[in-house]
Every structure is written in structure tokens, then in C-alpha cells.
């Protein structure tokens, strides 16, 4: 009998990277673009576009590359099999929650939206989406909570709660493989411009902007980690470091803390604007929710 025990994913990947670095030295840097790499992201016969041509004049150059491409093979494999992807533990819970009646109105998500695989297909790809009634763009989390408080008359979920993460992952899953296509014109134009300003503004004691790492140095190492282009197509993501699912705004907070800035609050106008700008920047890449990252 052959057995395989899977320990701490992060640690395992770390050992492999460390060993590879010792033997290969600087050769490893930049190998993510080598012609030898032929592995593509396929999940249950669904091909996910992890590299798409960038539109003319895109700040990232000629190609948009999903964060999946920057991860080690061990981490990449976890996302290729839904059974091995730990995010599906949350997704399964959300599947149940979708059918569960809650709140004073006695409704479940399914009471109005029916079959999620039909009603929610393509929804994640458009997030954050302009909401005319609220007069602002709303993220998936904010849409879910609006439904919960206004229609179900139930309690709003906390941004980073397991229930919310599971539901955003479950709804995002219904758009998996579809290209990210956020509205960029009309009232969204102002928000995207604001997000862009935030993206290029230096903050914190280290005086760094998002662009300093994710535009200027993607593909290179920052300590033991490889910098991605910072796309949002995989969120909420199961992160091995977190050992759980995490929201995009948690990732934003993490980056801001790393440059020693005071992060904005989850769901704040700043983060929603940044989310909108990043979604427009990564337009065309396939939705990968729920992705697995280092």
C-alpha cells in the first residue's frame, strides 16, 4: 500500500522552493515565463484562461497573467481538483445555506433566486456592480448582505465570517471560467478613476504603492514569495498561509500592513474603488473563484 500524507501546504511548498533555490540559484527567477512551462489550468474539463492578451496600452504590457501561474506546482495542483481544493468545504456549507430559510421574512436565497447555477452564472464576473438605488458600486459581499437585511430580514453577515466567505465563493463558482467583465463607463468611471489613484498612490512608512510591486516587479521574488500581477479573479481565495478562505479586502489589508500603512476598512469606499479598478485591469482573465494560493 502506498501512502501519502499531506502536511502543512505552505511548509511543503517552502521546502521545495528552498531546495530548488539552493541548487539552481538565480536561474529560478523569472522561470515562470519559460517556454517549457506547458501546464495549463484545467478543472474538471473546464479550461481556465490564465494568460490573456492585454488591450493596447495596458500598464501591464502585452499579457495579463493570473496569480495561478506564479505559484509553485504543488499549490497549482490543489486548484486543479475540486476535491483537493479546501475552499470547497466552505462552498458546500454555502450550498446548504442557499436553501436555508432565515430571517423574519421566512425566505432563503433560493426562494427568490432559484437555482444558483442558472441565476448566479456570470454575476461574479461583473463585480463590483453599479447599484442605482444605492448610488454606488456594490461588491458581492454587499449584495449578499443587502439581500439578507432587506429581503430576508435576517442579520447581516460579517465580512470575513465563514458564512460570508462560503457564499461569495459559492456564487463566484457559478461564474468560473467566464471572463472578468466589469462595467467601466457611466457612473463606474469615477470609481475606477479613484481606484486607479489609490493603486498608484504611495502609502505607509515604506512609502509604496500597489504598482511598485505588482506592476514593476511581478514574477520576481519578494523573499520566498513570487509577486503576481495582483489580479482579483480568484477571490475569495483559499490561502495556505491563512489556512482558510479569505476575502479580497483581507488581501488588500495584508498588503497595506506590509508597507506599514493603516489599512482601510473592509467594504470601505476606498477598497470598493480599488476592487473596481483591479477588476477592470484584469478584464478578460477567467474567474477562478475559489482559487488556491500560497
Amino acid at each position: 500500500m502506498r501512502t501519502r500524507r499531506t502536511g502543512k501546504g505552505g511548509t511543503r511548498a517552502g521546502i521545495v522552493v528552498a531546495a530548488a533555490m539552493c541548487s539552481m540559484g538565480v536561474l529560478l527567477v523569472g522561470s515562470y515565463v519559460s517556454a517549457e512551462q506547458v501546464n495549463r489550468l484545467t478543472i474538471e474539463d473546464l479550461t481556465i484562461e490564465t494568460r490573456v492578451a492585454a488591450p493596447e496600452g495596458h500598464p501591464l504590457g502585452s499579457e495579463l497573467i493570473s496569480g495561478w501561474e506564479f505559484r509553485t506546482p504543488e499549490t497549482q495542483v490543489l486548484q486543479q481538483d475540486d476535491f483537493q481544493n479546501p475552499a470547497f468545504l466552505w462552498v458546500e456549507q454555502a450550498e446548504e445555506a442557499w436553501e436555508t430559510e432565515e430571517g423574519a421574512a421566512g425566505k432563503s436565497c433560493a426562494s427568490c433566486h432559484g437555482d444558483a447555477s442558472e441565476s448566479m452564472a456570470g454575476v461574479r464576473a461583473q463585480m463590483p456592480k453599479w447599484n442605482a438605488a444605492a448610488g454606488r458600486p456594490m461588491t458581492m459581499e454587499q449584495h449578499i448582505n443587502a439581500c439578507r437585511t432587506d429581503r430576508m430580514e435576517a442579520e447581516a453577515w460579517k465580512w470575513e465570517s465563514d458564512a460570508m466567505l462560503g457564499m461569495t465563493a459559492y456564487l463566484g463558482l457559478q461564474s468560473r471560467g467566464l471572463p472578468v467583465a466589469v462595467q467601466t463607463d457611466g457612473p463606474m468611471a469615477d470609481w475606477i478613476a479613484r481606484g486607479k489613484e489609490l493603486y498608484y498612490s504611495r502609502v505607509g512608512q515604506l512609502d509604496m504603492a500597489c504598482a511598485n510591486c505588482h506592476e514593476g516587479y511581478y514574477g520576481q521574488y519578494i523573499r520566498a514569495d513570487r509577486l503576481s500581477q495582483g489580479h482579483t479573479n480568484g477571490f475569495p481565495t483559499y490561502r495556505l498561509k491563512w489556512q482558510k478562505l479569505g476575502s479580497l479586502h483581507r488581501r488588500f489589508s495584508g498588503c497595506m500592513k506590509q508597507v506599514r500603512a493603516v489599512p482601510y476598512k473592509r467594504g470601505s469606499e476606498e477598497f470598493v474603488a480599488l476592487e473596481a479598478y483591479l477588476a477592470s485591469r484584469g478584464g478578460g482573465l477567467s474567474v477562478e473563484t475559489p482559487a488556491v494560493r500560497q
Partner: protein
Amino acid sequence: MAKSKPRVKVPKKAAKGDLITIKTLISHKMESGQRKDKEGNPIPRSIINKFTCDFNGQVVFACDIEPAISANPFFEFSVRVEESGTFKFTWVDDDGSVYEKTADIAVQ
């Protein structure tokens, strides 16, 4: 995640003598006991400490799990099947809880 929920992947049917691959995953925080909270007090250990897989009452795979195993432990192993039957998977929690799941396989 408050409640641990196991998942298993076992082929529904196989030929006699086939080597089948079984995958299992369970949600669990796997708190190592080495960490401290914000006030500096140690967070007590809370992990799944044992995993076994029985086939028709006979143990085919078992292991003790230590604190270094990550959250949501995943196991993959192979078993040669000679007859139809039921796999029974058992996870034992530090708090005494036992999580169980069964899966049938038809062998032709």
C-alpha cells in the same frame, strides 16, 4: 469552521484486484497548541489526532496525526480491492468527538 465535516472520494465500482485511490478531506482548524492569543495566553491544542479507514471491518489505513499537520487535513492513499464492500472512515478529535463517513464500492 465550527463543525467538522468530512469529505471522501472513493470510486463507485472497480474490477477485482484493482488498486484504487481514495482521497479524504475534513474541515478542522487543527490548532497546534504552540500559538498565543493577543493577550499572550497559550491557545489550547485542538486537533484531530487519529484517522483510520476500515474496509469491511478490517483496517486498511490508519495513522496518528500530530500538531504539525495543517488545517483541513487531506489524505490520499491506495487500496487493492478484492471484493465489494464498505469503506468506513473515522476521524478522532482531541475533544473526544468522532467524525465518521462511509462509502460503498462494487467490485466486479
